[in-house]
């Protein structure tokens, strides 16, 4: 037996391909080779389905356990983990749901999944040191104009046609938000980020999300000033006060 052939056949079969289990595995009166391989396939899928359940609990509640397990199994076969870091697994689930025919009746499902992924990402991203913004005045005007700001590394921006943040809140234990009272089909600009051990979600105005998008794209202060003119001062001070901007650096 060649070890490479065995491992490639096994990995292929864990994620959907067929395998001749009898070629590799001993059968006995207790279990056949196919059944023994099935234990491992079940275990691999079990671990990954549990991971998706942990990342996407609200999506699971929205569609029910049975449908979620079914869609998870299809997702796992089409998007097997490629990273040794477990936290990386499951990032394409939202896109998968968006194109999954049987889930299209729950039109806000994919965006809810996107929100849950951004929360997961915030939890597993670096909580970096904040810059000392009191030193801004020490730089020349030319230096300041070339300055670039940065959102926290844990931060992500979300734009969606559904109020998925309210929906998410309504699905939390002890929430006093009633599902029937949510105006679900309303546009939402959202910032998701983490400070220490707490994940925050903040609805943003159109101007705020445009500003933070520009910051995220590493637009220098001079260009921000041209783009946001008289609003720049307020946008900057609100962002700094709320921790939406975490650091700055000079030049490119």
């Amino acid at each position, binding site marked *: *037996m060649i*070890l*490479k052939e*065995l*491992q*490639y056949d*096994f*990995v*292929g079969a*864990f*994620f959907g391909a067929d395998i001749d289990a009898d*070629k*590799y*595995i*001993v059968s*006995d009166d*207790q*279990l056949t*080779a196919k*059944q*023994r*391989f099935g*234990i*491992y396939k079940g*275990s*691999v899928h079990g*671990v*990954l389905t549990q*991971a998706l359940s942990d990342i996407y609990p609200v999506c699971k509640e929205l569609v029910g356990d049975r449908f979620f397990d079914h869609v998870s199994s299809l997702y796992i076969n089409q998007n*097997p*983990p*490629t*990273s*040794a*870091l*477990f*936290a990386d*697994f499951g990032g394409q689930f939202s896109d998968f749901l968006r194109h999954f025919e049987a889930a299209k009746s729950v039109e806000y499902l994919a965006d809810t999944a996107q929100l849950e992924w951004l929360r997961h990402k915030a*939890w*597993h*991203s*670096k*909580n*970096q040191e904040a810059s000392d913004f009191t030193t801004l005045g020490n730089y020349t005007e030319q230096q300041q104009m070339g300055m670039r700001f940065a959102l926290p*590394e844990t931060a992500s921006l979300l734009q969606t046609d559904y109020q998925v943040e309210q929906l998410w809140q309504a699905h939390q234990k002890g929430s006093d938000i009633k599902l029937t009272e949510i105006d679900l089909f309303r546009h939402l600009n959202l910032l998701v980020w*983490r400070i220490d*051990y707490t994940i925050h979600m903040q609805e943003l105005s159109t101007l705020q999300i445009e500003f933070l998008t520009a910051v995220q794209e590493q637009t220098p202060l001079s260009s921000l000033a041209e783009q946001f003119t008289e609003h720049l001062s307020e946008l900057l001070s609100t962002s700094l006060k709320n921790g939406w901007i975490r650091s700055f650096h000079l030049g490119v």
Partner: protein
Amino acid sequence: MSILHSSIHGCGIGLRSQHFAYIAEHQPNVPWFEILSDNYLIEGTVQREFVQQIRPDYPITFHGVGLSIGSVEPLNKDYLKRLVKLKNELEPAWISDHLCWTSAHGYNTHDLIPLPYTPDVVNHIVERILQVQDTLGERLVIENVSSYMQFKDSNMTEWEFINQVVEKSDCHLLLDVNNIYVSAINHHFSAEDYLLALPANRIKEIHLAGYEDKQTHLLDTHSRPVTEPVWDLFAKAVKHVGDVPVLIEWDNDIPEFSRLLQEADTAKQIQQQNL
């Protein structure tokens, strides 16, 4: 001697995020924690910050899944680099992983898949353990896995395979007593024969956990208390290997921390009675 460099002894607990808040609040009297190193490889995350906070109060060891020591693919350099960085940061007493493979062909199963037991596979594993030990600058501790299948090509017993691997690579062994019992039932061999054939002087640590009885086989779920037959086998293991640190693992349906302390107390009693 500071906690940072104190030795590992007694019965430790596998650290799980469900218990972070309890540990932070109560600072339980636990001689050491074992962390699942794969969950701490990203810098600046909540998990990593938590371990950094408790590290001055507890000695720790690393236990991994992602090394994939039996894979045919080249060792994952990024994974190893992260592991070395974590090691330098947290100074574990030792680093362990499993005698199996978890990834191949660019995909990661995040599960422990056994290997055929042949001389070629021994040589393959030894070469890779030596590479890992060179990178880490210390001996690796390798754990026997539970299994639900045997390969047609295997031409030696699992314990012969383990003996050859640890001798040729000069690594240490993490003896999982529950895994021996699970595999012994699933493959109809004597757990005691297996245990007594292992090189006692190589055993650095013992793991204890619970399995589920699926009627056709035992499944190593780490979701139950340690069972009586495993406690019995543990008593024999203590007689065989002597005073070696023991660890309670519980990964699914995780109970209150106090339940883990009860398991640790039982382990301590059995250990004391059999030394």
